[in-house]
């Protein structure tokens, strides 16, 4: 036991130190000015823009991602699909920065989609234009995370005993109803986990936005993570700490809500 507790202390202390800092720096400053920081922040148009864009992005991106990857793993459940299983994880593996040239060729003004449109008699489209920025980053988000979630869902589906599916199929020939009545309720707990992970991963999209649009992205995808980054470079720590507290607050409320929903749902089962 002593040797083990040594390693535990070694791993845990930095963790507690960071936790300690994360609270003191924020709370210490807030105590001086009361709620002033919060009020100022909510009056700040850039912050409100960032909040709005983040909510739009999560509101559209996360449900879309979940539906697509769940659909994909349901369609893959009866066959091995070796190539597909291999290819789906590729976007997760390779850094988006390394294939940014490829994306530019697909989406750019002289890119493949645009040329196909011209070929079909339509006007050329430049998806790299700022007005499509939100669509493009949602596409990148789905591209990046779909394979990961498909693996999570597939492993959840594979833990369901085969007999359940077979018994249901004996009574009803419809496979779609089998999916709805047997598989979906049984993987619901994993779906809650998947929602949490997807929301968290949406913040990691900072990387893709950075390589696509640089450190100053167009206004319509200016999100909380950019707001925080920019205030860091402006050395505005109070505002940054306040924004961090709000962000942590929103996220923990979200997690709490999802966990509560999960508990409610599994009790009904």
């Amino acid at each position: 036991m002593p040797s083990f507790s040594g390693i535990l202390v070694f791993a845990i202390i930095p963790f507690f130190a960071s936790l300690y800092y994360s609270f003191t720096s924020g709370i210490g400053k807030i105590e001086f000015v009361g709620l002033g920081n919060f009020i100022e922040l909510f009056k700040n148009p850039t912050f409100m823009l960032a909040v709005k864009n983040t909510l739009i992005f999560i509101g559209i991106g996360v449900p879309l991602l979940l539906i697509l990857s769940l659909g994909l793993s349901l369609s893959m459940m009866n066959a091995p699909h070796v190539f597909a299983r291999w290819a789906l994880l590729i976007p997760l593996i390779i850094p988006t920065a390394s294939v940014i040239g490829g994306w530019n060729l697909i989406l750019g003004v002289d890119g493949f989609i645009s040329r196909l449109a011209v070929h079909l008699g339509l006007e050329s489209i430049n998806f790299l234009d700022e007005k499509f920025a939100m669509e493009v980053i949602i596409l990148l988000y789905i591209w990046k995370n779909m394979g990961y979630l498909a693996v999570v869902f597939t492993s959840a589906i594979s833990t369901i005993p085969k007999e359940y599916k077979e018994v249901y199929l004996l009574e009803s020939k419809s496979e779609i109803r089998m999916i709805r009545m047997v598989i979906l309720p049984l993987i619901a707990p994993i779906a809650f986990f998947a929602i949490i992970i997807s929301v968290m991963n949406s913040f990691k999209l900072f990387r893709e936005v950075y390589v696509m649009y640089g450190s100053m992205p167009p206004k319509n995808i200016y999100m909380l993570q950019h707001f925080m980054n920019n205030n860091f470079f402006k050395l505005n720590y109070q505002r940054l700490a306040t924004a961090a507290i709000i962000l942590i607050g929103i996220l923990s409320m979200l997690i709490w809500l999802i966990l509560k929903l999960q508990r409610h749902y599994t009790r009904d089962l």
Partner: protein
Amino acid sequence: MKKWFIKAIVFISAALCIIPLIITVSNSFMSSWEIAEGAHVFPRDISIYQYEQVLLRSPQYLLWFWNSVKILFFTVILAIPLSVSAGFGFSKFQFPGRDIIFFLYIIILLLPFQATLVPQYITLNHLNLLDTTAAVVLPNAFSAFGAFMMTQFMKNIDDEIVDAGKIDGLSHWGVFIYIIVPLSKTAVAALFILLFIECWSMIEQPLIFLTDQGELPLSLYLGNISSNLYAAGTIYLILPLLVYLLAHDELVEGISYSGIK
């Protein structure tokens, strides 16, 4: 008929996933003149012009590549033993506060980087580590994710095996080294790939903790250049791709373990 339809959908989505990769690699074999002619997939004449430019004419690329390798090496060397031993502790020992500490790990795991940016910066500043490789390595080496994943995996190792080892006279360290570590090989391999990906494509941390141009990793380079982009990207993705080809099964298993609670 219906089966074919489903198969086609699966195939098309899989193809969409790798198309940007294919286009990048195939375009890396075009000369800059051929690229200027407009977007097409397959090069007419295979040219290594871009590779020559990247590897021989841009010392910055090589320096940043080396920085990426350095960051990766130190992070992995530190993070894997730490995660494995933390997993051992959380899964095989009862001690006061264990569940609370584990819960804190999960919370830390879920926080986006931007939320912990200031405390991390202040800590690194106090330790005089800003602008060094350690500034990017250390926060990642104490990986909450690694500890979480190893714990989930080791919970499935039978306690009876551990007890049997103890009866045969092994100390805690003996159990750890001769029983737990060999049984966790798959999880370690999966953790290795996930850490690899994380380090190799890291952008947020170096952007803030490293201001010295000489220390930056390659992931920041590719967003800032316009010429020879395809070859630079291709060289950059070879390593992760190789690791993936070698350890695909372990990765899938690892993701499944972190998913099932």
